């Protein structure tokens, strides 16, 4: 019963965010799209804090890296600066290496094995 109330509150928060983002305020469209990506990053941070096992946190950090690549692409087309995509590429490289290292650490092996 209690968990049902929790999911209903989350559903209402998502609906309220979408309505306020797209219909109440009048920004540029690119900023509205960027707000959706930032809201998704907030959910990823919730899973990072609450995750019961270490594997949940590793997955959340991996997905956060992928989301940051998308946010960098959106910033690049918003401000017409091409070097933000370079930042996204570097972030994807580092996120891949960090995920492999953390998975190996979770499995109980050492890094030179």
């Amino acid at each position, binding site marked *: 019963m209690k968990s049902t109330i929790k999911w209903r509150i989350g559903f209402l928060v998502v609906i309220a965010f979408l309505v306020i983002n797209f219909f109440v305020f009048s920004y540029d469209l690119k900023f509205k799209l960027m707000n959706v990506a930032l809201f998704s990053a907030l959910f990823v941070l919730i899973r990072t804090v609450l995750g019961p096992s270490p594997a949940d946190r590793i997955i959340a950090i991996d997905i956060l890296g992928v989301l940051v690549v998308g946010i960098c692409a959106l910033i690049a087309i918003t401000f017409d600066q091409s070097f933000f995509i370079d930042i996204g590429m570097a972030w994807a490289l580092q996120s891949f290496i960090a*995920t492999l290292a953390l998975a190996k650490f979770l499995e109980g092996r050492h890094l030179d094995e």
Partner: protein
Amino acid sequence: MSEIIGYILICIGLAFDFFGVLGLVRLPDVYNRLQAATKCVTFGTAGILAGVFVMEGYSSMGLKPIICIIFILLTAPVSAHAIARAAHRAKIKLTDKTIVDKYEEDKELY
């Protein structure tokens, strides 16, 4: 015209990202969460980058997302497989509704 197609691709990618992250929060298990979150990599961010490529065309800004897409599509399944294998070997429990676990049976064979 190319700008409209680019915006449509970006909107599809953002929708995939958003629903993938919702699955990451909502689903009950490590492996289910991984299954939902990998969708968000493969079509979400790759869709956003493809939209940027369609909007910018063949310029120095438009070809960088192609490199980024190739790299992400090559590395995301590798990291997802590594996490799933490590989580199963670290004996993280599956959810209570699980019916069959083929990987455990295969490990007992060898």
